[in-house]
């Protein structure tokens, strides 16, 4: 947290000497991406190198920009729900929930207890697949080709099967509705989810045995891409990247949305804010998610899954505005909606966590090499569908 009285926001864009400099030697400008496999999509980094050291790094994106917000303003409230799946296409369930939460704030709907439990179950399953997938990709970036990613995807496959059984789609779930959920869980689904959750710690142990103590991995990540908590807070970082710096900020605790206050879980925080901490936070968060899932599947109440006041079609919230946010797997995903009383939102804004977490990419990479920049980018966890919208 920024000490009071400090004047300006920390801004570390170093002054760089001219690229062509006969006396000191030329700098090298490298355009990494947009088709480089380590950029996790179509993302480009304009890197200026002095020898092998990064002295400037400007992210360039927008290759996937389709003006999602304009699309949202031209369709009905419900019509935007399937589009939110395409934001962060690994976490469609949490995107759906954040959007549903904002509309519920706007329209004054309250989901019943069972729907809240279902949402928590699905959000935590999403967190499991996002974090394990991310670690797999991070290992891929360090050069550990294939194996961890395949382990992670083996587990992801099982969760996606559950999503498919429930919503009909593996990744584009389009499942949450304003004031509840679309279809109810069957007892068979709950049983298979319980089996999956109970087996998940074994996978995590296996994963950690492979990675956590690995010397090469530690050498590549410890002390690399260090982030101070002051900068992290000031730069609007959220999610595991913020918590890795030692700031215990988790919206599940702070905002206490949904029924999270009923659950017993801890918020892991890091100590150094480096790449290794960002990896470790995710492993620990998965373990806490397993705890939450076990409690939710144990206590899942019976009852309706929709607010009886909710209208699926022709929803016209009263004029006004609302900002709703939840703790997604990548950070705070929020929706800001302005209603003018018509069936379409007047303004539909998404607060994308990966986009804002990219703000500090340059600060993290300065002084490191290109190979480190690849790992740092991997540990920030971006999905370009959400960065570019």
């Amino acid at each position, binding site marked *: *947290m*920024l000490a*009071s*009285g*400090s*004047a*300006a*926001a*920390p*801004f570390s*864009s170093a002054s760089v000497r001219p690229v062509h400099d006969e006396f000191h030697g030329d700098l090298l400008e490298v355009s990494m991406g947009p088709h480089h496999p380590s950029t996790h999509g179509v993302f480009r980094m304009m890197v200026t190198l002095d020898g092998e050291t990064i002295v400037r790094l400007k992210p360039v*994106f*927008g290759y996937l*920009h389709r*003006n999602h*917000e*304009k699309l949202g303003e031209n369709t009905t409230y419900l019509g935007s729900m399937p589009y939110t799946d395409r934001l962060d296409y690994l976490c469609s369930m949490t995107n759906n929930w954040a959007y549903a939460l904002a509309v519920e*704030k*706007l*329209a*004054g709907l309250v989901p019943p207890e069972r729907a809240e439990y279902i949402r928590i179950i699905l959000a935590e399953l999403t967190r499991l697949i996002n974090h394990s997938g991310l670690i797999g990709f991070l290992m891929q970036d360090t050069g550990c080709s294939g194996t961890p990613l395949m382990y992670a995807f083996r587990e992801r496959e099982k969760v996606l099967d559950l999503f498919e059984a429930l919503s009909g789609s593996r990744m584009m779930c389009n499942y949450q509705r304003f004031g509840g959920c679309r279809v109810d869980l069957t007892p068979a689904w709950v049983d298979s989810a319980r089996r999956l959750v109970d087996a998940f710690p074994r996978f995590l142990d296996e994963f950690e045995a492979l990675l956590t103590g690995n010397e090469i991995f530690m050498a590549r990540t410890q002390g690399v891409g260090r982030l101070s908590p002051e*900068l992290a*807070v*000031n*730069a*609007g*970082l*959220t999610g595991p990247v913020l918590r890795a710096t030692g*700031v215990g*900020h988790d919206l599940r605790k*702070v905002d206490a949305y949904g029924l999270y206050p009923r659950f017993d879980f801890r918020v892991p925080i890091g100590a150094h804010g480096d790449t290794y901490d960002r990896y470790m936070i995710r492993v620990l968060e998965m373990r806490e998610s397993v705890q939450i899932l076990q409690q939710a599947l144990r206590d899942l109440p019976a009852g309706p899954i929709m607010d009886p006041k909710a209208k699926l079609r022709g929803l016209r*919230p*009263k*004029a*006004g*505005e*609302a*900002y709703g*946010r939840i703790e997604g797997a990548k950070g*705070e995903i*929020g929706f*800001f909606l*302005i*209603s003018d009383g018509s069936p379409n939102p*007047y*303004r539909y*804004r998404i*607060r994308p966590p990966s*986009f*804002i977490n*990219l*703000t*500090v990419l340059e600060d993290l990479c300065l002084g490191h090499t290109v190979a480190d920049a690849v790992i740092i980018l991997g540990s920030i966890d971006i999905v370009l569908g959400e960065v*570019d*919208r």
Partner: protein
Amino acid sequence: METAEQIRDRLLARFPGAEITVVTNPGLSAQHSLLLGSPHARAIAQFLRDDPTLRLDQCSNVTGVDWPEKEIIDTVKVTVPDPAGGPPKVIEQKNKRLTPAYLEVVYHLYSIALRHGPVVIRTRTGNRSDQVDVPSLTPVWRSCEFQEREVFDLFGVSFSGHPDLRRILMWDGFKDYPMRKDYVDPDDYEWEPTPHDEVLARAKVHYPATPAAPEPKA
């Protein structure tokens, strides 16, 4: 946490002469906001960040809203004297007026240290065409850096004092602002003036038109 009115009163005491109005939100969420005049906006933002009882250390969300001018018809009852000398008549008169057009930037502020929020602040431009400057809050909260660039890119709000104001999602040569309400998208995104047309025009000058091929005889 203090209400928007309390914050406004405290700010007015601290910054006499600043324009601060509370914009009430008629919706159910009741997230009211503070509209800040441009001259004092950055100083007020800094105060909100550093004030020990507020400590709004994180600017979570920055977004633009386009408000084009809108015609509003007010119905007024007017008493008109009867020219024939009878009792004065009351008629309904419809007055048209235009609401002012402006672009608005909305900031959602939270305190991570004290775990409260949101405090919503807004700044407005003079109009939508030539007075589109508002002060940038990037020097106060670094998180505004990319988000203000996005508002500049998609809405055309110019942030004075922003360290690196460039387009971020659209490409550099793009002309219009796609999130404005009156934006019309081009019929063909793929078309661009290639040298090919000029080459063809030059070719016409240099070489005489080739004689038309004779009609094939039936």
